[in-house]
């Protein structure tokens, strides 16, 4: 039995490997495009997954309303861009203001959601908070649907096609490269924030031991709020970028994007920030390969299959740590 399964496994891997190598040698440009497409996807996932993983790290809650915060970021940017566009403002100003408003609005929503839906349940069983999160997610979706529209809205890309990027545009578009570069910058800034600033250190300490953090004078509630705000800001940036990339949005885009980012966070090891970034890139690139080489219509099935596999074989994720308590 064991030999058969090993043989099957080896031949399976061999066949896929052979196929992959042949494809890559025959169409190297296509392979390259898929990698870049995967990186773009992964970048967006990473911007959302950060919020999941940071919140989980601090209060062990899967914030299912997080995808909606991302959607609200995209919606806000659309509204701001449309209004300012009608007024005939300069494009660069519109881009900056759209980002600023998206971030501010998303942060306000993230902050408020925590205060309303999670803070009162801080000492309740974890399941209660989780249900509250799902409720919040449905509420925000429906609220935006009723307040705006259930239809898809065209989102005119805020990011123009750069002239200087012309020679490379057939491999990766200006929007895609902007997404990747912006993500890298956001990651670096976030890394610096967490590693060196006062609030960053307080976040790490609170994530490791809330009671001890409180005993040292850290206001745990403020730290939790700050975590939601930071996570919402990165999600808002992701929302605006993806809207520029896809070209249309509606109230529902946060649902699937949120779930995918959640998968990415679990894949990388929920609670771990580098894990969320790594998991997002791995998920983005493997999704890109799967849709590019196999069946594009099974894209979402593939992502959820990955979730099932991780939960079965490595629930702690790629970089997740097994906490052992010292007595």
């Amino acid at each position, binding site marked *: 039995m064991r030999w058969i399964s090993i043989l099957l496994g080896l031949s399976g891997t061999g066949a896929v490997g052979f196929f992959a190598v042949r494809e890559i040698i025959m169409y190297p440009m296509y392979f390259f495009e898929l990698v870049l497409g995967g990186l773009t996807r992964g970048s967006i996932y990473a911007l959302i997954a950060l919020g999941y993983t940071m919140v989980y790290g601090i209060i062990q809650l899967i914030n299912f309303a997080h995808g909606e915060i991302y959607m609200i970021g995209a919606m806000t940017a659309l509204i701001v861009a449309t209004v300012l566009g009608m007024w005939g403002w300069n494009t660069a100003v519109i881009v900056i203001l759209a980002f600023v408003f998206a971030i501010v609005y998303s942060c306000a929503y993230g902050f408020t959601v925590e205060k309303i839906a999670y803070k009162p349940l801080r000492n309740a069983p974890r399941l209660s908070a989780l249900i509250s999160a799902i409720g919040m997610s449905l509420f925000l979706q429906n609220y935006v649907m009723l307040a705006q529209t259930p239809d898809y809205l065209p989102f005119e890309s805020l990011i123009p096609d750069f002239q200087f990027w012309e020679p490379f545009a057939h491999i990766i578009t200006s929007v895609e490269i902007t997404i990747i570069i912006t993500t890298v910058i956001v990651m670096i800034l976030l890394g610096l924030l967490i590693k060196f600033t006062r609030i960053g*250190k307080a976040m790490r300490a609170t994530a490791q031991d809330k009671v001890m953090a409180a*005993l*040292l004078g850290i206001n745990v509630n403020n730290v939790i709020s700050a975590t939601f705000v930071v996570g919402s800001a990165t999600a808002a940036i992701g929302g605006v970028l993806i809207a520029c990339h896809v070209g249309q949005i509606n109230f529902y885009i946060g649902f699937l994007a949120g779930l995918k980012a959640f998968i990415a966070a679990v894949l990388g090891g929920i609670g771990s920030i580098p894990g969320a970034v790594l998991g997002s890139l791995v998920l983005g690139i493997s999704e890109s390969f799967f849709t590019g080489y196999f069946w594009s219509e099974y894209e979402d099935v593939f992502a959820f299959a990955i979730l099932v596999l991780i939960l079965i074989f490595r629930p702690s994720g790629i970089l997740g740590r097994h906490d052992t308590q010292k007595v």
Partner: protein
Amino acid sequence: MLKLTNIHTYYGNIHALKGIDIEVAEGEVISLIGANGAGKSTTLMTTCGIVSPKKGTIELNGEDITYLPPDALVKKGICQVPEGRRIFPYLTVAENLDMGAFLRNDKDKIKQDLDYVYELFPILANRRNQAGGTLSGGEQQMLAISRALMSRPKILLLDEPSLGLAPIVVKQIFSIIEKINQESRTTIFIVEQNANLALKAAHRGYVMETGRITMTDTGKNLLANEDVKKAYLGI
């Protein structure tokens, strides 16, 4: 300086503290001894604002601090080294110490205090870039005390500093505790199961049983007391 009057604390339906009175004067070393589950740690957690009492008052230098949040209490100079040390395992030793000084802004004095704790526990200076979780139990206790000292406490609460440590390390820790009390006039409140050590180090002691204070006297007298000897010293 610290005065607990008729404190009642509950965990859900469990009546953990049943009206306790404790008074700690400035510059004193006080020991609170008692068996497992007597409510010693709860007393400290109530003092630090982690759990709120249902009845009673806590005063610091005459000011009512009963319902202040933990961070406000740290600002007022109450700092606890909790049971099990609770080092941040993934922060380095230096970062752990840094967290102790979280509420302070006086950079020069922080540096001075850092040098002071590295002098008290030279081993920590050698390990300053190591993750806290990789330290041995004794080193973690040293780090936990140092971290608390970094907040410049007026009163230092220690919960079972001897827990799980080798006798020689326990001795070292207690001698440092006495040194801290004498050198910087820091008031110290120790909760211990190791009654012998704790009472020897203390000016005064309290004995606690199932949520009540049953005895209080000077450390010396308690050590000589027949009931204490029988129940806590095993003599």
